[in-house]
């Protein structure tokens, strides 16, 4: 029988310190506390995941039947052009998007985002093949898709690397909005005017940079961070 010298409560024989104040229990005369049965089990439970097999099956069947039906209609009824390929492609893109949600939930977020980027690029390339014009694909679609994929990967990495909080999310979001807007405008200007220059995205960049720098300052100073949290009641 051991008591906490700080709180005055009796402690369970299995405890090596007081759960209320963390004061260690030192009782040289009572070594049996080390072999006492703890009042709670040591195994931690894991929350059972929802099985989404039914949803995955339903989704796959719906997308597959849409693709097959459109393909058959294109071959036998409306034969003027290869219009069904755009629908079949869209079904494939949707199916790939749904993989981490319902089909294979263990897929890593990075791999999933990369796969999404690749499949969107492939779909857009297929559209260029259908329209027989590929300049917009190489000039606009591919660079913007790559930029969005890279930014999504970076955001996932940063949010996983640093402890998730409102401030971190806001910082990363503002920084990425700035980069995305600048990237989109540079790509568009390069495509339309054959040269790189900034106009509207410069304003977005300025505003987002100010907010991001302010947020980074708040995040890096513990006292400031706590003061903001206290005042805003996060």
């Amino acid at each position, binding site marked *: 029988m051991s008591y906490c010298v700080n709180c005055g409560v009796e402690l369970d024989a299995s405890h090596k310190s007081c759960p*209320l104040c963390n004061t260690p229990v030192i009782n040289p005369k009572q070594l049996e506390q080390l072999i006492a049965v703890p009042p709670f*089990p040591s195994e931690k439970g894991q929350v059972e995941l*929802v*099985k989404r097999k039914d949803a995955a099956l339903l989704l796959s069947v719906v997308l597959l039947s849409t693709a097959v039906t459109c393909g058959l209609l294109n071959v036998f009824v409306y034969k003027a052009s290869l219009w069904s390929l755009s629908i079949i492609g869209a079904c494939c893109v949707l199916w790939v998007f749904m993989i981490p949600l319902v089909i294979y939930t263990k897929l890593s977020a990075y791999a999933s985002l990369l796969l999404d980027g690749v499949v969107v690029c492939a779909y857009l390339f297929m559209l260029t093949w259908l329209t027989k014009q590929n300049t917009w694909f190489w000039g606009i679609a591919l660079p913007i898709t790559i930029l969005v994929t890279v930014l999504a990967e970076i955001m996932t990495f940063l949010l996983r690397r640093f402890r998730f909080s409102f401030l971190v999310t806001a910082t990363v979001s503002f920084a990425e909005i700035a980069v995305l807007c600048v990237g989109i405008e540079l790509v568009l200007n390069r495509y339309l005017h054959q040269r790189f220059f900034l106009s509207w995205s410069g304003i977005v960049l300025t505003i987002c940079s100010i907010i991001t720098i302010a947020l980074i300052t708040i995040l890096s100073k513990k006292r400031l961070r706590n003061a903001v949290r206290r005042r805003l009641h996060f």
Partner: protein
Amino acid sequence: MPSKRPPLSEKRPKKDWYKLDLSAIVYPTLQRRDFSAVYRLSVTLKAPVDPELLQRAVDIAMKRFPTYKVAIRKGLFWRYLEPNRRPGPYVRPDIKNPCMPMGFQTNNRYLVRFYYYENRISMEAHHCLGDGTGGMCVLQTVTAVYLELQGCFITKKYFVRDVNEEPSPGELEDAYMRYADAGVHPPRVHEKAYRVRGTKEPFYTLNIINGTLSSAETKQVAKKYGVTVTEYFNAVLLYALLQKQEKEWHLRLRPVKIAMPVNLRRFFPSETLRNFITMVYPGIDPRLGAYTFEEIVTQTHNFMRYYINEKFLRGDITTNAATQRNPLIRVVPLFLKDFIVSRFYAAIQDKNSSAGLTNMGLCQVPEDMKPHIERFDIYMGQPFSSRTNCAIITYEDTLTINFASSIIEADVERLFFRKLVQDGIHVKIASNRESV
């Protein structure tokens, strides 16, 4: 020759779904990936639990409780419960982190879980099925069947039900609607209360601090202050919260309030096993000045006397029922109701109190069950936001207090138990915390 008419009970098809009761409507809307409104009841026997026998007892007893052997489903306007004929619920070894989130589509769609550890049987139930009284009936009946399978005879009394008889309609009713008939709808008072700040524990961690006291000793101390045991514990918790708020950095002080469920069966006769509770919020406003412990006790005592009576509680139930009865609200699709209710709860209801406290009171068991039972425990489960919940139950002379929280700091618990020790009550502490 006239044809023989079947009796009414045969003619009427057996009810195969249940509306959620007035309280139960709210709990599923609060469901998050990391939160479910789950509570736990435990009984500690005097001998180690045999898992196989316990599984048989659960299988037999659960058939007696049709509103607990259910799955929750979504309708267009409301959720509902439908009988769950899937295998289960299965008993499993106990875990360190009780009251884990309970997905509606996991565990074969059951909303109850049974655990065993050494001499202890634990039951966890989602609050949309029923309150602590209903849950206690299920747990005690399972325990009685378990003991009967071991060869004991148990009288069907108090919380123990006869598994061979059909449940009465009264056990399955939504008792709120029967008593929601006050002439006015008293308005709800909402004021932002002090909120306990702390470092959040990692996902799924629930810190338990269990205090075991002598019931007789506690009653004596409460008597010394001239109040009941519940009022005394409320006052001690308020005292602890006030001290914590004072020590923390604050721009301004806020009122300290406790969310305390009141068992309405005490005031409105009902044998329902579903939810039949309402919340009251005893509190202290430190902006009025510094309160001594004696003043807090008096304030709590007066609050309880004033608010916890049949008239006030009937008005409270009527106010709650008014929203459900409103025809305009009834036709709002479920997803919109979910969105609005969860936002309202997070923004207003949850901020209305600083901590939770429930006292189930004396847990009675049939005489022939007493030699097999050591103690009972109750856990209020994971709090919706970072705070601590306190649940109390008494069996014979053993009074157990279980604090459950998802924050690392145990300041409220420490201040609470230290006050009990200062008042001369012997407290024994046990915990599931990593550091101990």
